[in-house]
């Protein structure tokens, strides 16, 4: 709640009355026409192209619709029951979970030290930040194309590199081998993601009082202790935020996999989003695909809300 900017005309009495009524700002209602002009168009577009299709997914997931039939047969929770016994679904979910763990941990383990080192004093700080951020601004298609080329078994950069340093026996068709494909794709995704974390962590670090660090040093805290007891608590809210967006993002990963492997070889890199896509548009199981999409939505919402709660609690106690 923001208080303290009451209209001058109403004075302190009006301000207090408004605050009591739970309306700290203008006590006078804005005319409907004005609200309609300012909110109407946005709300209309948002309702038509976001809210309505979201409700559509909920509805479709309860039908056996194939995308063509005139009628959408209501089958209750049947799709979800089928889902429980669908090996391909579980396979995809496991890949998303792995993606969530590795695809969150690795960028943090790379990005946080980089941010701390940059923040604590390095020359060319903005230049470094810009370089770490370059992969992030690249289109996912381009990240996919570049890494597809790096991993290429015949003239790829990775194999050339391995041969160059005498590790020729480790060369591999990284994306074609079911044992390495998911890790290879994950590596490309981590490359494209950790720069975001550097930027976010740097922004969080700006909020830390430098005097605290000095005080800790005076008290004899070493670099690790200063990091552990001053820096990390100082960026806790940002840490929660970063954790939320990367974890939630892990359940929506699609582009880079589509470009690199299309979910293959076999189903070695299949994820929920790709599976929903294939079910709905490849095989015309619009209803079943919607059920898979609902699982993605549910996982995202639960995670996001859980972290919002954690964050709120942190703000109250901290």
């Amino acid at each position, binding site marked *: 709640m923001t208080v303290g900017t009451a209209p001058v005309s109403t004075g302190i009495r009006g301000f207090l009355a408004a605050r009591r009524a739970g309306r700290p700002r203008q006590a006078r209602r804005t005319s409907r026409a004005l609200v309609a002009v300012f909110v109407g168009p*946005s709300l209309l577009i948002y309702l038509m192209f976001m809210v309505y299709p979201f409700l*559509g997914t909920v509805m479709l997931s309860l039908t056996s619709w194939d995308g063509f039939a005139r009628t959408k047969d209501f089958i209750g929770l049947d799709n979800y029951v089928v889902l429980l016994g669908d090996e391909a679904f579980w396979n995809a979910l496991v890949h998303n979970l792995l993606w969530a763990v590795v695809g969150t941990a690795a960028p943090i383990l790379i990005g946080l030290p980089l941010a701390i*080192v940059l923040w604590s004093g390095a020359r060319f700080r903005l230049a470094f930040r810009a370089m770490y951020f370059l992969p992030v601004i*690249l289109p996912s298609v381009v990240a996919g194309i570049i890494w597809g080329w790096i991993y290429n078994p015949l003239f790829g*950069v990775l194999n050339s590199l391995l041969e160059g340093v005498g590790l020729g026996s480790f060369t591999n068709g990284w994306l074609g081998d079911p044992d390495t494909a998911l890790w290879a794709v994950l590596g490309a995704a981590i490359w494209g993601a950790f720069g975001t974390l550097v930027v976010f962590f740097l922004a969080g670090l*700006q909020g830390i009082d430098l005097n605290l660090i000095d005080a800790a040093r005076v008290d004899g805290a*070493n670099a690790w202790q200063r990091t552990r007891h001053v820096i990390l608590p100082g960026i806790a809210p940002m840490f929660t*935020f970063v954790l939320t967006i990367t974890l939630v993002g892990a359940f929506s990963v699609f582009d880079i996999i589509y470009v690199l492997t299309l979910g293959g070889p076999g189903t070695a890199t299949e994820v929920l989003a790709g599976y929903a896509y294939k079910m709905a548009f490849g095989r015309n199981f619009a209803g079943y695909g919607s059920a898979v999409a609902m699982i993605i939505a549910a996982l995202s919402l639960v995670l996001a809300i859980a972290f919002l709660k954690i964050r709120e609690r942190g703000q109250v106690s901290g």
Partner: protein
Amino acid sequence: MAEVARRAGQSDNREARLRVGRSMSAVAKYAFLGFWAALCVLPLVLVLSTAVKDPNLATGNPFQLFSSFRPQNLVDAWTLGNFEKYFLNTIVIMVPTVLGVVLLSMMTGYALARFNFRGRSTVFYLFILGLMVPFFAIMIPLYYNLRDYGLLNTPWAVILPSIAGAGGTGLPLGVFLMRAYFLDMPGELADAARVDGCSEWDVFRRVLAPLAIPAASALAILTFLSAWNTFLLPLLYLQGAENRTLATGLLLFTGGRTRELELTAAGTLIMIAPVIVFFLLFQRQFVRGLTAGAVKG
């Protein structure tokens, strides 16, 4: 912006005093920073080098950077790949998306921050919810909705969902950012304008909206990048060769060319050059827009 610069300078001055990794020698520090910077930049250098390589050398040793110079590759890729068409299609989508997101977010963010009307917080939370809904949760019905509206395979099929927030940015992020920005403005400004006889519209249009330009430009930059890079929306809703954007067009162009690396690289360069130039020009605004939500939230 000045604040960030000031802080950057400040911490450089204090470098000796507060350095976390004092034990870490400067060499190790810059080796660490440099290693990851190289990992980020080298693949792009490779793209640049290969894009101008002689076709006979392109699939050879990739580490022979800039061993030949043949800018003709770029022209070849441009004409062979129909990039003119892709560029045009992308711009036709990008411009209305950016304008729509920025203008609508400013108006709605302003109303949510400074108007008093029934349902205000409901509208706000409805938009915020959009930040958490992944695209896949609307992807399937949206296809059939767009078909029924007659918008499928027209630019609107990407523009309108992008404005609504399907691409990850759009109104949910925009309304959130702009509302926070307008909330931070002192109410006295608007009151003074009203006393001077400004209508509510003029208060917005002439007094407060111009003050929100820093936030609006950060939002515009974020939206531009996401519109330029968006892939799945045009993949699904803009089918047919004549409708392809740079993202889907580039994938098609490189798809059948595993051996013509110089053309793949040239096409890639064509797509990313504007983005990189844009990023280098507006880095600060971009970073500010990206982190504003995290810091404020």
